[in-house]
């Protein structure tokens, strides 16, 4: 079920985002939505599809490190599956500072700040729920990642990353 965006003559200037569901989530409509959204923001998307084993995701991202990894999940197991996935991804040296985010319906009840904090501690740079406000935040995040990637001085991203690591250490 893997799909990829059509490449263009500007492919060398487009950022690749790897989009994936979690290992237990079979939903695809959310992946299609997020793929379209990423493409609207200028990303070239590799969509790994539903029920992606952690090792499949890790192998793909290690073989061709993308500019961004997005996990989208709506089956309510995201707070469990997402933490496992990002822990594995962060073990890959080339993904140590790659922006990795997760969003969707992360638990079986209304969005929980506990789930979000748990997922950030596990290694995600950002965690998004399923509200319209979350989509706006995700959109702003995508613009920031793109702006930072094309900036002459990527120090801001490194500084941001260091802050995140420090925040995790303080939690």
């Amino acid at each position: 079920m893997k799909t990829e965006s059509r490449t263009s003559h500007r492919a060398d200037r487009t950022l690749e985002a790897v989009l994936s569901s979690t290992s237990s989530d079979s939903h695809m409509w959310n992946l299609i939505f997020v793929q379209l959204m990423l493409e609207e923001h200028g990303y070239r998307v590799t969509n790994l599809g539903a029920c992606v084993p952690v090792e499949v995701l890790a192998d793909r991202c290690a073989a061709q490190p993308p500019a961004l990894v997005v996990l989208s999940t709506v089956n309510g197991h995201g707070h469990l599956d997402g933490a496992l996935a990002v822990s594995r991804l962060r073990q890959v040296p080339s993904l140590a500072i790659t922006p990795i985010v997760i969003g969707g319906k992360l638990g079986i009840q209304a969005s929980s700040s506990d789930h979000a904090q748990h997922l950030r501690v596990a290694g995600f740079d950002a965690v998004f729920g399923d509200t319209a406000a979350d989509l706006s935040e995700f959109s702003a995040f995508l613009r920031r990642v793109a702006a930072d990637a094309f900036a002459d001085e990527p120090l801001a991203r490194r500084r941001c990353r260091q802050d995140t690591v420090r925040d995790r250490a303080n939690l």
Partner: protein
Amino acid sequence: MTRAGPFHAREVSAFAGRIAPPAPFGEVIAAATARGRLIVQPRMGMGDPVDMRAGLLAVKAANASTVGTITVDSYTRCNDDEAVRRAIARDAQLNGYPIVAHSSDVTSAIVKELRDASFAIQVRHGSADPQRIFEAVVAAGLDATEGGPISYCLPYSRLPLADSVKNWAVCCQTFGRLRDKGYEPHLETLAAVCSASYARLVCWWLLACLRRCFFPSRGCAACR
């Protein structure tokens, strides 16, 4: 909802009253249809048997013609026993009822208490490799489930379709063992999910026809 953990039959059998006679799923549907009643089936599954029982009880008590559902959690669907164990150990909330992890005594106690001639209970799971789910379904005396080797593979699994077909053929034999217990196994052919997920209407009809061929040839009735 937070009471996930090891359960024993006595915890739920305390609720169990009379032993209900078998109520074939198809007969319940046919009887309600004959009375001109709209049948409502809230799809739901809870990790905790006590919550699962309470949910089914609420559905049965609703002022409507209802069918109960036990939806299996996503880890059980994927045969990921370790994830089920981890979730239960962490008191985490599963998105369905882990029918393989819970003892069949626990599940059958719920079924015996709630199922009767007017209230059927169906298991929904979404697995392309459901042998252990079918074993648990049969052990609990549940007579109704749904799905099929195509519709529970293409949207739900990364298994090759041929493997799913082989798995489901074995499951039909397992499900057929229910007749030894006096139940008529009932498999609802699930094609709607395919049309909703990715297929055109013609595919819906094609899948329904394929299932009409597949299940009866392997000893299981198939109804929409």
